[in-house]
C-alpha cells in the first residue's frame, strides 16, 4: 500500500497568508518528509509566494485571484500532470496539523476503497473547535443536508483537510466547483460514485490572517451552496466522469 514509489503531493492554497504559509510549509517538510509541497499562491498581494518558496515549497502563482476553487483545481491539474498518486490539501493558515496526515493515510490503508479521506473536527469527543456560532450553524446545516443526500454521515463538510487518491485527483482536475468548493465537492464525489470517508483530526485556531469566510459572508455562502446543492440534485449526472472530456478545463488542453 505504502510503496516507496507512490508519489505524494501536499497542496496548500494560499491567499495573502505571508505570516503563516512559511511555517506550514516547513511543518509539512518536517512532519511528512516524503511529500512534495506545492503552494498555490492565488494572486496574493503580499509576499505569500516568496515566503513559500523560501520555506522550500514549489509555487504556482496565479496571475490574479481566482478564488479557492480555481486555485485548488490548479493544484489538482498539477498533481494529475505530475503523476502523483496521492494528494493532500492543507490550509495555509496553520489550522491543520501536518502530523494528522498520518491519520488520513492510516484510514486509507484500512479502507483502500476510499477515494477521498476527509479530516473532520466533529467526529469523536472533541467538540471544542472554536468557530463563530454563525459559521458552526452553517456547517451543521450542510452536514445534515449532505448526510441525507449522500446517504452516509458527513460531519464536517467544509473541512479543507483532505486526502485524495488518483481517481479523485482526475475527477477534480477536470471539474471542481468555483467559489466555496468543499461542500459541493462531496456532492460531486457522490454523483460520480467515488467513495469518501471521514476521520477525526485535531484542528487549531487560525495562526493569523483573516478567514476566507467572514461572518458577514456566511449567509451569502450558505445560500450559494444551498443553490449549488439544489441545482446539483436536478442536474443529470454524471456530467463529467473521469476520462471524459469536460466542457472547459485546464487539463483538457492536453499539453503534457
Amino acid at each position, binding site marked *: 500500500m505504502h510503496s516507496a514509489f507512490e508519489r505524494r503531493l501536499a497542496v496548500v492554497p494560499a491567499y495573502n497568508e505571508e505570516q503563516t504559509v512559511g511555517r506550514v510549509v516547513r511543518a509539512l517538510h518536517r512532519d511528512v518528509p516524503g511529500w512534495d509541497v506545492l503552494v*498555490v499562491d492565488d494572486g496574493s498581494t503580499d509576499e505569500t509566494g516568496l515566503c513559500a*518558496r*523560501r*520555506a*522550500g*515549497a*514549489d*509555487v*504556482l*502563482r*496565479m*496571475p*490574479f485571484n*481566482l478564488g479557492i476553487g*480555481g486555485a485548488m*483545481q*490548479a493544484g489538482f*491539474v*498539477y498533481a494529475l*500532470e505530475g503523476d502523483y498518486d496521492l494528494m493532500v490539501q492543507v490550509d495555509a493558515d496553520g489550522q491543520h496539523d501536518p502530523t494528522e496526515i498520518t491519520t488520513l493515510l492510516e484510514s486509507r490503508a484500512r479502507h483502500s476503497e476510499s477515494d477521498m479521506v476527509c479530516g473532520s473536527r466533529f467526529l469523536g469527543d472533541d467538540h471544542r473547535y472554536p468557530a463563530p456560532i454563525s459559521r458552526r450553524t452553517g456547517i451543521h446545516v450542510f452536514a445534515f443536508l449532505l448526510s441525507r443526500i449522500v446517504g452516509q454521515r458527513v460531519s464536517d463538510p467544509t473541512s479543507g483537510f483532505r486526502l485524495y487518491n488518483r481517481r479523485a485527483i482526475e475527477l477534480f482536475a477536470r471539474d471542481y466547483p*468555483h467559489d466555496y468548493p468543499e461542500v459541493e465537492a462531496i456532492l460531486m464525489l457522490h454523483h460520480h460514485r467515488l467513495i469518501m470517508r471521514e476521520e477525526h483530526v485535531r484542528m487549531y485556531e487560525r495562526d493569523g490572517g483573516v478567514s476566507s469566510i467572514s461572518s458577514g459572508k456566511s449567509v451569502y455562502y450558505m445560500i450559494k451552496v444551498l443553490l449549488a446543492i439544489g441545482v446539483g440534485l436536478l442536474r443529470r449526472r454524471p456530467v463529467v466522469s473521469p476520462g471524459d472530456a469536460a*466542457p*472547459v*478545463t*485546464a487539463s483538457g*488542453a492536453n*499539453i503534457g
Partner: protein
Amino acid sequence: MTTHQRAVAVVATVGLLILVFDLVRRRRLLERYALVWMAVTVLLLVLSAWGGLLDRVADAIGISYPPSALFAAAFGFVIVLLLHFSVAVSRLTDQSKVLAQRLALLEQRVTPQEHEEPAEAHAESVTADR
C-alpha cells in the same frame, strides 16, 4: 397607435439599428453579439412600423393600449439579451480561469525553482553578469 407615436418608435429603432451596424463596422462589436441585437431591433421595427400587427399582438395578449405592447415586447427582449450576456460572461469567467491555471502551471515549469540550490543559482547569476 397614432402616426406620431409610430414615427417616434420607428426613428428610435432605426437609430439603434444604425448604431449596431456602425459598431460592427468599427469592429467594436462582434458579429455573434451584433446578430442578437439586430434580430431584436428588426423585430421591434416591424412591430412599430406595422401598426396592424401590433394591434393584433396587443389584442392577443390582452393589452388594450397597443404602445404598451411595444414596451412589453422590448422589455421581454431586454431580459433575454441580459440572460444571454450572463451566459456569455459565465463562459468567459470559466475560460479565463482555465487560462490563468494554464499560465501558472507553465510559468512554474519554466521558472527555475530557486529554493532547490539557492547558493549555486546565485553563483551562476553572478557569473552570467560578468
